[in-house]
């Protein structure tokens, strides 16, 4: 038995991979692009395991330190449902990568680089007035067939300007929240789904957060991507998943840089099981064409 230990480990690792494939849990650990490699390794791993278990020429000397090879099996049992908790989000960097950010005290002041940022010609007072109109009189924006007095429980915006889906989540969350030229979208409507956080480290306490984890390779590189949100009087619970609809408004982060946030009109709780835990760069979807981004003519 001891001299066959390595063979047994190979077969146990193969079983772990098969288990994750059968229960569709591989996506909790690896991005789609990386899953192919672990799947390809299944056959050689199994064949090597069979050789090491059944071949009589194996003369391996077992050592107690070899027991560490059982660690992945133990850790796999501790992963639970395989979903990173929302509380972990405060320990990750945000996916923000905009360099030419602007501070609200002086719209001409450059945050960092030598680039000149010309702000779009937005009448923010008008945009704000329009946004408040939607917030105060949401029924006017209901679909005719969906007039519903219980507006706190069902989505009501008939055709949000931004409909955030997994294939555009990463790019749009970053753009809308941090890009200075996104201020032209003040007053526009938005619908997004994600887990909620009552507060998040890079925003003032006046904002809450809704978002997802973004990965490119595996869970170890997860960053946070999402939106600053003002939920108003609505109660949210950290780590629960919601679908929210609202209006984009201009605000500031902890360091005084402009951000866009969502003033929530409506929200409903959703099941995390119906949602993908991670989002990926847009070229991971749609055969790499980023089609869900193409309809938004984003200025940088």
């Amino acid at each position, binding site marked *: 038995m001891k001299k066959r230990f390595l063979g047994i480990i190979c077969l146990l690792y193969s079983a772990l991979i098969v288990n994750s494939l059968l229960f569709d849990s591989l996506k909790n650990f690896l991005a789609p692009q990386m899953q192919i490699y672990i799947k390809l390794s299944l056959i050689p791993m199994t064949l090597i395991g069979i050789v*090491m278990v059944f071949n009589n020429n194996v003369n391996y000397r077992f050592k107690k330190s070899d027991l560490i090879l059982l660690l*992945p099996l133990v*850790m796999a049992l501790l992963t639970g449902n395989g979903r990173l*908790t929302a509380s972990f989000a405060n320990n990750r960097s945000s996916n923000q990568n905009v360099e030419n950010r602007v501070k609200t005290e002086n719209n001409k002041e450059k945050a960092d680089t030598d680039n000149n940022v010309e702000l779009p010609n937005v009448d923010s007072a008008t945009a704000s007035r329009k946004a408040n109109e939607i917030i105060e009189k949401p029924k006017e924006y209901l679909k005719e067939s969906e007039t519903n007095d219980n507006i706190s429980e069902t989505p009501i915006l008939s055709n949000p300007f931004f409909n955030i889906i997994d294939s555009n989540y990463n790019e749009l969350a970053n753009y809308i929240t941090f890009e200075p030229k996104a201020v032209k979208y003040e007053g526009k409507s938005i619908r997004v789904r994600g887990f909620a956080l009552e507060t998040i480290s890079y925003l003032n306490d006046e904002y809450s957060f809704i978002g997802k984890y973004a990965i490119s*390779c595996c869970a*170890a590189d997860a960053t946070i991507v999402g939106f600053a949100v003002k939920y108003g009087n609505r109660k949210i619970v950290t780590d629960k998943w919601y679908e929210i609809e609202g209006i984009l408004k201009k605000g500031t982060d902890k360091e005084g840089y402009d951000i866009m946030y969502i003033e929530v009109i409506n929200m409903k709780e959703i099941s995390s099981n119906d949602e993908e835990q991670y989002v990926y760069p847009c070229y991971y979807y749609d055969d790499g064409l980023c089609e869900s981004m193409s309809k938004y003519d984003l200025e940088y």
Partner: protein
Amino acid sequence: MDIIKNISIIFISIFFESLPFLLLGSLISSIIETYITDDKLAKMIPKNGILGSIVGIFLGFFLPACDCAVIPISKRLLKKKIPVNVAISFMLASPIINPVVLLSTYNAFYRTNPEIFWLRLIFGILIALVIGVIMGLLFGKKSVIVNNITDEDDGCCHCHHDNHSHRSIKNDILSISRHTAYDLFEVVKFLMFGALIASLVQVLLPRNILMIFNNNQVLSIITLMLFAYFISLCSTSDSFVGKSLLSTFGKSSIVAYLLLGPMIDIKNTVVLFGNYKKSFVLTLIFLIFLIIFIFSLMVVRVL
């Protein structure tokens, strides 16, 4: 419980991400052992230290391996009496210049900061060359490997490629399987410790601790080098995390982060200590940190 769950998820993700490449590296290593003689390999390598290192770097381009897979391959090369400078240059260059890593760096940076893509590529090659030559000068004639498993332990009487009377396809396949398993688990054992440490750091260390030194260029270079070392991301994914830090840290710090991670991290340090002599590993780590730091300071001057 949340903490344990998150640590486990990060650990398994590192394990699943590393395992196929370790298997590939071990397979390549055992094929080298079975089919390529010491003499054949020696003929391919120039005696000159610098030229030898350049060959090592080209080997990294044509035999692309990530930072996990290179360790069993480079160990096998050293066992085959390949000069230290060649094996080290290969080990350091391969995780940076492999096409998958180049593509991910391109996707993350080329549109907004093409200079970072080029600096990672060019500096990666130069640093691999410099460190390979220095390590070759320091350790040229000495044995640097720790032999955990020998052919004798295996009871393998036909691993020696010149024993033609015992060669057959079946024996070769069995030999390759055995060597692959031995090479693989020599590395995986130490990967377990490294992955566990990386998972603990990822979950327990708040990311905003990085911000303490971001106002000082020298300290921010050191901070991001240590960050790259401890979070142990694979070189295909570190570009996107690096991109997210670009607005907070200078380009020189990001370049340092992108160079150090593929060359050395906590996960690979544990693996190296299990497979190479302590003095060799410590010298290698010191040189990697020092040379990358110097090159990053050059970036401060130029950009």
